[in-house]
């Protein structure tokens, strides 16, 4: 039996949820929150979201979606075009290939995995930024932002689990 139009729309909308929520959750990364020094250490939500969905629902976070999310982040944040896109693709690739390690294990295993993989992501961004600017970027803010991202991963994951459970199914 072929599903009706409404049903297909429903499935389509549910399948879009990971990308759409990621886009919206990433907006605080860009909007001025007015909190002192917050933009320096704001956790990178797109990074967490791409890791989460790549591990738990890789079918709903294909490379093309990862690429678009990364480009959107780059353009809004004023990054060099493609910087975040490349980083997210690498994180996606590693996360998908290692997902058997995380699926069905306690949460802290995924957290630890995220800490390791996102460290690689930040290192990549740092290296690419240095190469593109032809200058050594020496600021502790990169380390702080990495730590903030890792520390806030459980909170973000809590939201993603809700999205996963109620919006995606």
């Amino acid at each position: 039996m072929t599903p009706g139009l409404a049903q297909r729309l429903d499935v389509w909308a549910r399948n879009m949820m990971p990308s759409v929520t990621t886009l919206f959750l990433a907006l605080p990364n860009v909007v001025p929150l007015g909190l002192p020094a917050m933009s320096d250490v704001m956790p990178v939500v797109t990074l967490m979201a791409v890791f989460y969905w790549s591990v738990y629902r890789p079918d709903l976070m294909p490379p093309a979606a990862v690429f678009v999310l990364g480009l959107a982040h780059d353009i809004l944040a004023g990054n060099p075009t493609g910087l975040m896109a490349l980083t997210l693709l690498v994180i996606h690739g590693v996360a998908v290939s290692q997902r058997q390690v995380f699926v069905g294990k306690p949460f802290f295993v995924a957290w630890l995995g995220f800490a390791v993989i996102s460290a690689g992501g930040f290192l990549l961004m740092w290296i690419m930024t240095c190469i593109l600017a032809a200058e050594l970027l020496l600021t502790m803010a990169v380390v702080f932002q990495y730590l903030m991202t890792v520390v806030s991963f459980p909170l973000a994951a809590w939201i993603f689990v809700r999205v996963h459970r109620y919006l995606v199914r």
Partner: protein
Amino acid sequence: MASRPVSFTRVAQPVRSLWHRFAYAALVLAAFGLMLLGKADVVIVERARVAVTDAVTPILEVLSEPASSMTRVFDQIAELRDLRGEVDRLREENGRLRRWQHVAGGLQAENQALRNLTHFVAPPGPKVISGRAISNAGGPFVRSILVNIGERHGARRGLAAVSGNGFVGVVVEVGTHHSRVLLMTDLNSQIPVIVQTTRDPGVLAGDNSNRPRLQFLPQNAHVSTGDPVVTSGEGGVLPAGLPIGVITAIGDAGVHVKPIVDWDRLEYVQLLDYRIEGVSGAPGAKPLKAAPAYPIKASEDPATVTSGSRRP
């Protein structure tokens, strides 16, 4: 006819599986390619960026509204907390400023008299365009903000952005509804400056921290902490004399400048249009013949002024 959908699937299937196999590699390459194209300032990449940002600008404008009111609440709480100390500080400062007012009045009269004697042509005042910052500074990898002033409000590349009394950065990207200001703290920002007290010229280079470095000072420069730093106008992109900040540290790590601008409260931004046609002016604009030797000349030079007013 009935077999058409089947044949379509049969044709699409290999393409689809090929796409699945190579999508990842292709996208990684595309990301690399975009980075290189962006670095080479390819027009189409820039156009695409501007178009996307223009489309999102209304959303960011709305979202930044509650954020700025939140800042106001935080500020008010902080103000109430140290009202007493603030009043004392202001009284003391008021007394000091009164004395300065006397001095400044005298100097202004003297200046006016000297100008009359030498038939000095005062540079035209800037056209000021005010707007709101609708994005934050962007994190450790990049320092730029979006401002809701676009081409239709008169923004163009190379304009100076100030907030309060301090210099913020330079407009590097202009869309219809927005423009992007590269902050002076960005890794890619280099601003020609001059130390106001000693007249030592230099270049203020950002390093993505809140304290940009003062580079290329002359060998015999004797700057000290607390010296004010202003734009020099060299190169003809920025006007001369915009206050930037004060020197805070001189050491092995270089000379560092603390900007006047409060980066955490960068809410309203003004773009100053001095009608200078520098290297990053509109395409087809006549560039300055040579960088002015003395900073004041950038805005004093009558040639600059007339070429500016001839613009449509």
